[in-house]
């Protein structure tokens, strides 16, 4: 999977690149809009992560140009916070998702994986761990083929952990993902344990082997098989 990361801050690029490489993505980087366009037209990518504020051609300009050239690579925009107009403009121009800085790596990874599934691999959109299958499209979870009734929050948590497979995800990041920005994740992370307990019960994870607790961090789903 090839990812193009466009941001003008070299430190941020380096940091994100390190994590993405660790997740076995092939990462190319661009520091401004024009460099990004050159790379996009030179070779295909599976996902483009595009900051709006760029020297030269800005994020919107890049997005507009590549959509005009009928390149429909999924694009995640890195927007300014609270800027509804930015978000609307980005989505109007054909961005697939947006993420506000400061963001967590877990959130970025989840978004990338969601986009990758939505895009190329439509044949296998289902996430699976052991006997549990989660279909992000129909929003259904089955255990050995039998439907499990999850609350929206339990579903979001399971999906988030599955997208971040083999990574420990903190309660704080989970709270951010589930409740969004309006709630204080510091407060809401106290609720995570309750929801995880219910989730474990529903998916029959008696020995806490599917959703594992990671001391001092949070939770993790560890399993290679899909």
């Amino acid at each position, binding site marked *: 999977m090839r990812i193009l990361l466009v941001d003008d801050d070299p*430190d941020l690029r380096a*940091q994100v690149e390190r994590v993405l490489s660790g997740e076995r993505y092939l990462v190319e980087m661009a520091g401004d809009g024009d460099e990004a366009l050159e790379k996009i037209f030179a070779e295909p990518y599976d996902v483009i992560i595009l900051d709006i504020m760029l020297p030269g051609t800005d994020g919107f300009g890049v997005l507009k140009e590549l959509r005009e050239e009928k390149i429909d690579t999924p694009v995640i925009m890195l927007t*300014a916070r*609270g800027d509804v107009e930015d978000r609307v403009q980005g989505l109007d121009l054909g961005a697939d998702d947006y993420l506000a800085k*400061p963001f*967590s790596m877990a959130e970025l990874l989840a978004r990338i994986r969601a986009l990758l599934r939505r895009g190329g691999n439509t044949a296998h959109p289902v996430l699976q761990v052991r006997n549990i299958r989660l279909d992000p499209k129909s929003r259904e979870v089955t255990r050995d083929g039998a439907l499990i009734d999850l609350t929206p929050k339990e579903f979001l948590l399971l999906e988030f952990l599955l997208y971040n497979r083999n990574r420990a995800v903190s309660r704080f990041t989970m709270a951010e993902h589930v409740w969004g920005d309006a709630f*204080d994740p*510091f407060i*809401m992370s106290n609720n995570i344990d309750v929801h995880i307990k219910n989730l474990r019960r529903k998916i029959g994870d008696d020995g806490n082997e599917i959703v594992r607790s990671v001391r001092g961090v949070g939770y993790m789903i560890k399993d290679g098989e899909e």
Partner: protein
Amino acid sequence: MKIRHRITLWITFAGILASLVLSLIVFFEMVEEPYELLDQELARQADALISNLRILPKGPASLAANRQHFTSPYWLRIIDRQQRTIFASELVATVDIPVRNTDEGYSVNTDIPLRKIFPDMEEDDRDELTAFRVRVFPFEYSGERFVLQIARPVENFNQETVELFTTIELGLVASGIVLLLIGYVTAGRILAPIRRINAIAGTFNEKTLNIRIPLRDNRDELDELAASLNAMFDRLQYSFVRQKEFVANAAHELKTPITILRVSLEELLQCDTIPEKERGGVEKLTQTVLRMDRLVRNLLDLSALEMDRTQGRENFLLNDLVREVIDEFQPLLQRMRIGCTLRMEEAMRVWADREQLRRLFINLMDNAVKYNREGGEIRLQAVSRDATGEVQVLLFNTGEGVPAADRDKVFDQFYRVEKSRSTAFGGSGLGLTLSKRIVELHGGRIVLESKPGQWTQIDMALPILSRS
């Protein structure tokens, strides 16, 4: 005292003072003038008398026969050195007038009606009492010293004087009233432009930075005042905008470094290889970065709200929104064994920015939980006030409360009642500031009431009811 009243009083005071001086001059002139004329007449008469006198040695005096008429209507008496009367006119028998040793004329009042002295007087003045204007002239006659006392009966001026005085006083009162009225109207006219300027300047605040006072271009003092105020508004507006931009820019610039820190630390925590004793430090560091993250997000939200950028109003049921928010807090409430009662009027349909209102209720509930005690209580009550189109919300909790002195400060940026406690909960110190701003953007009011150590209550009124 209002300036209008002060100007009125000054105008009145100055006017009355001027009238008083004028009337005093007139008064004294009118009172003194007749006496001066009388005194001159008496002096002339006395001269004529003295030059026509015949005084016998050691005997009575007599006037030349053809000068008899001089005595009428005068009261005349000539006294020699032994105080004997050596000449007296007819009137002396009727009235006794004391002699004073003076060059000036003086007045003596009697209780004799005028008709006794002037029997052929006109009807209307007959009952008035007689007064005498008296002068005393010493003179010498063939080496002897005599004193001529001459007086003329006049109407009693006292009464006239009192009448004159009363008239003048009435005039003064009347002019005082007129002056008051004129002063009041004039002051009003002088102050009218000031009132206009004040009315506009009074509405100037951080939300109406664009207003300016219209100038009349007549370059008078008030126009200059208006121009100065406008210039001040310009500078204020500039600083306000600059300050808001600064906050927004500063927060904006912090986003990338915080993202880097956050991503790095989260990655560090993924490693199983961190030595156990360093792990606590990394976790602590992560918490701190997350708090910074939160702070920057809230700052950006606040500056977006400050710049009035986001208001997308829609029609929705407030009941649903409040229930949704409270539901999210349920596990937390159970954990802290906090009892939460919700009393809401049925079906309150409102016209408001849903996201902002959601945020508002989340922030307020967040505080009600965060600062509550184990086993405490939260009561949320929402009713509609159809008369004002307002929704009134009371959110009561058994939290620590706020000292009375700080009750208004809780809505200030970065205010915290108890620093350590709210930091432990990760509060950014901007929650209530954001809440207040949202309430203001919806044209509402929010206040905090509290009994320290026992309870805290948020009381807010939002004029957002939909007209159905």
